[in-house]
């Protein structure tokens, strides 16, 4: 101001000088606000009057008018500029508020993980300037809430070393249910302004929406799991009533017939009855095994104990469970120097046995089953090819579904439940591999199983054992 006054001494024209004072008022209004603008216009008026008009007598009425006009203009311009500035600031804060809300909406809409989405919204809350930290307490959490903070918006002060801080609680409400609450710790000696409270409330509403969405999603997945469990239950019931009853009927009939001592049995007939009972017992036992496998498949209860497994040893163990006649039909081709596979040997043995049993069961007894094992660099591939009935066209994937049996099989009297292949696939996948089935050219089916081999070749180790054994 004083600088301006000294400048004004240079200038002799009164009107020009008054404009300079007005400039100061405008600057004060736009940078400092309403009160400084008012003060600067009055200061300007006095300075104008004292410093510049003094040499000139006040009797000239035109100058009085000029002074009055200056004062009024200065006041009006000052207030208008200040108002403009306030509007601009308000618009800016609205914009950032909108931005925060948009970000929160995006987090709610796009993030499927509840915890991550909640974290994002909570971060947005704690980024609001006067807030030092924000914590979310959900109604179901074990963290006990401070009873003093239960009421909405209630504040309490907490004295810490850095001065009094305010704690403020916002309830997370959905309709009339209280889902939890958001607790805010404010920075020292700060309070929330009206706009900030409004913003926090909107964000808290986002949290409520998010919790509700999550609840609905869970309910939906639970419902579909229930539907599936129900389908399984129905299938199991059908299985128990039909597939269990028929062997039991045979056993009961044979044994009770033998127990009936009224007439002595012909030894040949007696043997027949007992053999039937014996066979049906095995069948029943197999069924029980199948149901156990099925329940494990359902519960994802297979915990493979994977270890380096020699393919030739695995195959020899699998083949030893088949009789000589069956072994005649199985042609085995192992590539030389196969790497070990990294699997649970017992589970994969079960898979191979099952696939081979299937191949034998579904192909004519004069046809061979080919088993080829080859190295695919990172994986070992097992290929089991038969000349059996083959796969129903277009249903190559469905055969791995639970309880699926190809239409011609259902009508045939080859027994089966449609569990074996589902179990095989489950086991192979639990062991990090994959199992596929395809039509074989010229008739029949090809099952292909790829399994990871051991990453670290064990050449070094086997070398050392060789040395050790030869030195003995």
């Amino acid at each position: 101001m004083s600088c301006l006054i000294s400048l004004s001494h240079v200038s002799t024209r009164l009107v020009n000088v008054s404009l300079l004072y007005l400039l100061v008022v405008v600057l004060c209004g736009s940078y400092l606000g309403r009160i400084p603008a008012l003060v600067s216009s009055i200061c300007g008026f006095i300075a104008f009057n004292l410093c510049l008009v003094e040499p000139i007598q006040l009797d000239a009425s035109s100058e009085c008018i000029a002074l009055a006009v200056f004062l009024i203009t200065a006041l009006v311009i000052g207030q208008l500029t200040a108002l403009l500035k306030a509007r601009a600031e308000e618009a800016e804060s609205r914009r950032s508020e909108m931005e925060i809300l948009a970000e929160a909406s995006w987090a709610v809409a796009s993030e499927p993980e509840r915890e991550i989405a909640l974290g994002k919204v909570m971060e947005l809350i704690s980024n609001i300037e006067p807030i030092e930290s924000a914590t979310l307490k959900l109604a179901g959490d074990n963290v006990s809430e401070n009873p003093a903070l239960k009421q909405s918006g209630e504040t309490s002060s907490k004295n810490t070393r850095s001065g009094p801080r305010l704690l403020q609680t916002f309830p997370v409400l959905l309709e009339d249910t209280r889902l939890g609450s958001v607790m805010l710790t404010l920075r020292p000696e700060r309070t929330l302004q009206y706009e900030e409270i409004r913003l926090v409330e909107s964000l808290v509403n986002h949290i409520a929406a998010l919790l509700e969405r999550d609840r609905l999603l869970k309910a939906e997945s639970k419902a579909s799991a229930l539907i599936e469990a129900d389908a399984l239950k129905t299938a199991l019931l059908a299985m128990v009533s039909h597939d269990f009853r028929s062997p039991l009927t045979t056993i009961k009939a044979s044994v009770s017939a033998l127990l009936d001592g009224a007439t002595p049995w012909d030894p040949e007939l007696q043997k027949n009855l007992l053999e039937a009972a014996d066979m049906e017992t095995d069948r029943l036992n197999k069924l029980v095994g199948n149901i156990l496998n099925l329940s494990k498949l359902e519960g994802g209860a297979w915990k493979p104990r994977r270890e380096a497994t020699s393919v030739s040893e695995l195959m020899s163990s699998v083949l030893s469970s088949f009789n000589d006649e069956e072994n005649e039909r199985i042609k085995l081709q192992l590539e030389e120097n196969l790497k070990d596979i990294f699997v649970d040997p017992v589970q994969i043995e079960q898979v191979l046995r099952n696939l081979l049993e299937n191949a034998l069961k579904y192909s004519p007894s004069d046809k061979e089953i080919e088993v080829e094992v080859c190295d695919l660099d990172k994986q070992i591939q097992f290929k089991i090819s038969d000349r059996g009935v083959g796969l129903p066209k277009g249903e190559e994937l469905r055969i791995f579904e639970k309880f699926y049996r190809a239409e011609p099989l259902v009508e045939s009297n080859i027994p089966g439940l449609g569990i074996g292949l589902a179990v095989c696939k489950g086991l192979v996948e639990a062991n990090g591999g994959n199992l596929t089935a395809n039509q074989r050219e010229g008739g029949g089916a090809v099952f292909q199983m790829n399994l990871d081999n051991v990453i670290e070749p064990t050449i070094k180790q086997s070398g050392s054992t060789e040395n050790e054994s030869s030195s003995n």
Partner: protein
Amino acid sequence: MKVLVIDDEPQIRRALRAGLEHNGYEVMLAANGEEGLDTAALKIPDLLILDLALPGTDGFTVLKQLREWSKIPVIVLTVREGEEEKIKALDLGADDYLVKPFGLGELLARMRAVLRRANTEEKEAESTFSYQGLFVDMAKRLVSIDDSEVHLTPKEYDLLKYMILQPNRVLTHRQLLTKVWGPEYSEDHHTLRVHIANLRNKIETHPERPRLIHTEMRIGYRFRIDQ
């Protein structure tokens, strides 16, 4: 021949008693572990059939306590699941295992094998072994197939000898490694596998479909001979 059956299931005890008595065995029954141990101590059976899943003192405990003072052959009964259970029982000194449900014929075959082994152990190891073209002269440490000599490394020979002295018995990895290599090698499964593979190549007609050395996945090996 006295057989003690320890099983908590009355129907199984009843069936086993009938089946075994019919085959000329003298059968004693016990419904739980404590009773079983008492009977074993008082009556000294020749063979014990032990259910692993007993209420109270379980089969493993019975086996452990029994092995503190007795070498009576033991066949354990187990359910299908879990090789762990079988390995544990075998390592604790069970002679064989049977998975429920089983046929009487299978049980009788296992019993005969176990009893025969018990007898040969008493009679000292025979000095030669001969089965389907395989001939082992234990005095000279010589092995031949169809009269032509097969060269085995010392460890391969020890392994073969240990197995043929206990035919048809499941020998766990740990048992084989401990007996042939020593206790410090008890976890070195890879060494064992390599030697078994070599041995198969030397003595089996079709090493990829072995007839003599049979693999019990994750458990161990069984030297199989038809009786």
